[in-house]
């Protein structure tokens, strides 16, 4: 009767109030899996709150690379009531719930942080299951579906630990509950406990006592859970593996790419989710030199100390202008922000563009408009990035779709900024930035630093032949001099300027300068290789082609793997270069498709509108999501299938996610 055991294909979820340590439980779980050779992919969801509101981590573990989350949960682990009310319904019938039996009498209405709408929905659910309003009722409804219940007496176990380790107050070790939940999870999954121990050591490092206490607790929970559910359908097993793996977040990937690209100056003003990157950089200001990629074969000698400077500014206007000032000196400079901060950078971007300054802006998209949902997900800033700033000024816009693209685009941004002497806006969406996963270390040996055309005082400038910052004589790109370089005095102004950089209102010069600036964009369109512009997945002659960008890449590829396995003839055009827009290339892939599906995490199908603007080609279908939650590959798979069957409306709005 029981379905066969499912090994190394798990969806695990842990939840709890913000600030209670759920993040470290997820971290330990993921690292244990990674230590055991598994691939993991995790997503974080939390409120714009410091302490108390619900947060959760949904994690998938698999033998193979995982790139997205799914809707269902196989193991739900928690030590408090809210998580259970919120997520119990998502647990698969063959799944398990790890919970605290002492909370059984908690009523739904006791939990003030559950929104009215959700509360009503849960009440309806409970009523339809003919049960009451308590946690026990919720569990009963789950159990009836076949879900295994794994009661863990958290408090008892904590007391045992407190005894063992001679802790006088239980309150000092409440955070250990997190590891109990993880231990219990591994218990029913039958995963090698040594991996968990290793993970704890890794995470808590120096703090030996913390490690042993948590390990001891986790071991108890492990044993108890295992005894309660000895025959669980889902199992995790170690996978032997030769190659190293990287375990990181999208923010970190982006930071690594930028550092590798030679960034030496970054400004920021705190904002979710962009500050993660800057804070990571702040902690790593001292750099090493002469490496050979991310994970070099052997240690190499360092010749000279290198370092970068991270500056927290008074606002984002200061952030963008300060980074621009720094860029003028030759330092590879960037700023990182999110929507509200980006909105304040419009003037600064325009100035950088008219002055041809190589400035990189990493834009972490979150759900807008206005303050919106600061900790939730969206791809809502594409159009704004493309048209940022009054008047007309060229810029390059890149959007990353996975961690490797984050690294590469982080690196590439500086090359493009310096080669074409214009601002580069690098779009990352929060779903990518805040996800964490294991990947094989990407091979970056093809990456080279390209500083573009740089002037210097030895180029023969003289009184009669002075250095001209905006020389019109040699194609659209003029040699760029850096502040402080002898023999290359120049001027900048936000006004239209002459070749020296002085203000002009001459109509002829004005035309020449406008044309120069935009010609650089044409040049970029010509020179940037196709594999940077876009990637096409799937059969070449597919009658259905999906167009998408950014973080949906993971969910799409995971969903497509299933559709392709089912024989669907679907192609997927992943667009990465948004400006200059690769119109011809996109058109080539779309021209013959009968069905064209936009998949985007926004209301307006922004990329679709850009595609139409540049190619005239309209999408036939839209699969959109704008509830602040990333797309799961489950819902995407379903939506795509339904389009495939000709049953979908023109516009499908995905609404899953807690």
């Amino acid at each position, binding site marked *: 009767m029981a379905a066969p055991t499912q090994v190394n294909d798990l969806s695990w979820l842990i939840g709890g109030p913000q600030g209670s340590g759920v993040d470290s439980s997820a971290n330990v779980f993921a690292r244990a899996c*990674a230590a055991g*050779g598994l691939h993991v992919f995790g997503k974080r969801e939390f409120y714009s709150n410091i302490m108390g509101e619900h947060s959760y981590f949904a994690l998938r573990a698999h033998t193979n690379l995982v790139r997205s989350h799914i809707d269902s949960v196989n193991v739900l682990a928690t030590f408090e009531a809210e998580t259970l009310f919120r997520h119990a319904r998502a647990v698969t019938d063959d799944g398990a719930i790890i919970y605290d039996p002492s909370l059984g009498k908690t009523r739904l209405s006791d939990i003030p942080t559950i929104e009215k709408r959700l509360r009503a929905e849960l009440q309806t659910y409970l009523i339809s299951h003919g049960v009451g309003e308590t946690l026990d009722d919720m569990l009963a409804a789950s159990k009836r579906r076949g879900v295994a219940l794994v009661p863990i007496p958290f408090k008892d176990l904590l007391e045992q630990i407190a005894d063992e380790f001679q802790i006088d107050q239980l309150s000092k070790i409440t955070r250990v509950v997190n590891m109990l939940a993880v231990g219990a999870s591994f218990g029913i999954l039958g995963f090698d406990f040594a991996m968990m121990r290793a993970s704890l050591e890794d995470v808590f490092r120096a703090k030996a006592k913390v490690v042993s206490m948590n390990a001891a607790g986790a071991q108890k929970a492990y044993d108890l859970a295992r005894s309660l559910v000895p025959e669980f359908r889902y199992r995790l097993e170690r996978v032997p*593996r030769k*190659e190293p*793996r*990287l375990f990181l977040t999208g923010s970190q990937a982006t930071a*690594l790419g930028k*550092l590798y*690209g030679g960034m*030496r*100056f970054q*400004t920021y003003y705190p904002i979710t989710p962009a500050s993660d990157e800057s804070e990571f950089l702040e902690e790593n*200001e001292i*750099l*090493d*030199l*002469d*490496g*050979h990629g*991310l*994970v070099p074969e052997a240690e*190499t000698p*360092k010749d000279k100390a290198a*370092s*970068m*400077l991270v*500056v927290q*500014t*008074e606002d984002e*206007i*200061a952030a963008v*202008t*300060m*980074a*621009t*000032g*720094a*860029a003028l*000196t*030759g330092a590879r400079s960037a700023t990182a922000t999110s929507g509200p901060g980006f909105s304040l950078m419009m003037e*600064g971007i325009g100035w950088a563009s008219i002055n041809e300054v190589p400035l990189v802006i990493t834009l972490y998209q979150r759900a807008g408009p206005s303050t919106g949902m600061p900790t939730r997900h969206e791809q809502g800033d594409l159009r704004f990035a493309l048209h940022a700033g009054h008047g007309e000024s060229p810029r390059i816009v890149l959007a990353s779709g996975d961690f490797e693209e984050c690294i590469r685009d982080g*690196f590439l941004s500086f090359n493009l900024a310096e080669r074409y002497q214009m601002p580069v806006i690098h779009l990352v969406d929060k779903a990518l930035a805040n996800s964490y996963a294991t990947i094989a*270390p990407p091979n970056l040996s093809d990456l*080279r*630093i*390209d500083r573009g055309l740089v002037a210097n*005082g030895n180029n023969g400038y003289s009184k009669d032949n002075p250095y001209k910052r905006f020389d019109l004589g040699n194609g659209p790109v003029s040699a760029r001099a*850096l*502040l*402080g370089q*002898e023999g*290359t*005095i120049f*001027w900048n*102004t*936000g*006004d239209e300027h002459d070749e020296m*950089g*002085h*203000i002009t209102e001459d109509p002829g010069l004005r035309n020449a300068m406008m044309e120069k600036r935009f010609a650089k964009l044409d040049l970029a369109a010509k020179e940037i290789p196709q594999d940077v512009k876009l990637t096409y997945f799937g059969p070449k002659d597919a009658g259905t082609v999906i167009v998408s960008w950014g973080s949906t890449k993971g969910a799409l590829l995971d969903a497509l793997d299933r559709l392709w396995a089912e024989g669907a003839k679907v192609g997927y055009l992943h667009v990465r270069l948004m400006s200059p827009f690769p119109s011809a290339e996109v058109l080539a892939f779309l021209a013959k498709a009968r069905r064209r599906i936009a998949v985007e995490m926004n209301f307006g199908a922004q990329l679709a509108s850009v595609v139409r603007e540049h190619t005239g080609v309209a999408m036939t279908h839209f699969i959109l999501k704008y509830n602040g939650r990333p797309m799961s590959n489950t819902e995407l798979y379903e939506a795509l299938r339904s389009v495939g069957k000709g049953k979908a409306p023109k516009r499908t709005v995905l609404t899953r996610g807690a």
Partner: protein
Amino acid sequence: MALEQVLKPSDFATEVHNDWCPGCGDFGILRTIQMALAELRMEPHRVTIVSGIGCSAKTIHYVKTYGVHTLHGRALPYATGVKLANPQLKVLCLSGDGDGLGIGGGHFVNAGRRNLDMLYVIHDNGVYGLTKGQAAPTLKLGVQTKSLAHPNINDAVNPIWLALAAGATWVGRGYSYEIKHLVSLLKQGIEHKGYAFLDVLQPCPTYNDINTKEWYGGEDRKDAESGRPLPRVYKLEDEGFDPVVHEPSEIEKKTTQALEKALEWGDRIPIGVFFKNEHVPTFEERILQRVSTYMDNPPALQSIAGPNGEPRTDLTRLVQRMTFKGE
């Protein structure tokens, strides 16, 4: 950084046509900047002058050093970026009063918190010159200059006081018709170790018909006997004012004394140095605590690529904690 050879102010002149109004106080400021740079024997390519937007901001086009004419209100953060990325450059920053105290007010306050080694000069003419004479933040309440439809409805901000409150460690005021005095102030400000702020009284004959050269010079009130005007502007140093914080314990006293002087206006307007305190670590020194190689190998001067563009940054140490080695 100073040159051996003698420089003339004209060594810092460009060929750009100057389009200020005749009699504009900005001419004095321009000239004194050129004189100060010459007297300090600065190599032009080691100096960057950053300005905001306004009549005043055009100054950079007339000075032969690197000149960065930026956005309205943003001169300070641009200048800060330049200086931080290459602390070996001398950085001067110029604003109008609207630029620096109105739209740029937030940066004004926050620049004081850094004590970065540079000089910030405000061209204080009481009006928004370039946009045709609206009231600037330094125009006094109730005053109605030429192009105002009504008397000024906002109170004036006191730049000296605000700079003290913000934390500038050198605070001075000059007058654009006291050339020698202004040159000396500029030089002191440039050489001050830390963030120096200089307010320059700058008549705008076109729009400010109240605070004119004649008014500052006291031509409306002549000495009964001699018939000579009684200037409103006087020099602090002439009255034995000592602005220097000689030791940290004096900070409060010297601050209050500067404040008292800052409040003077009308019949007697002090110019000179109001405050000078070198007991606050500069921003550069604070960074050095974090990055010991900062001054020698600052962001702008680091080598990031090998001869064939090989990225030189080694991320090994950084990714260590993110790496799971193979078995």
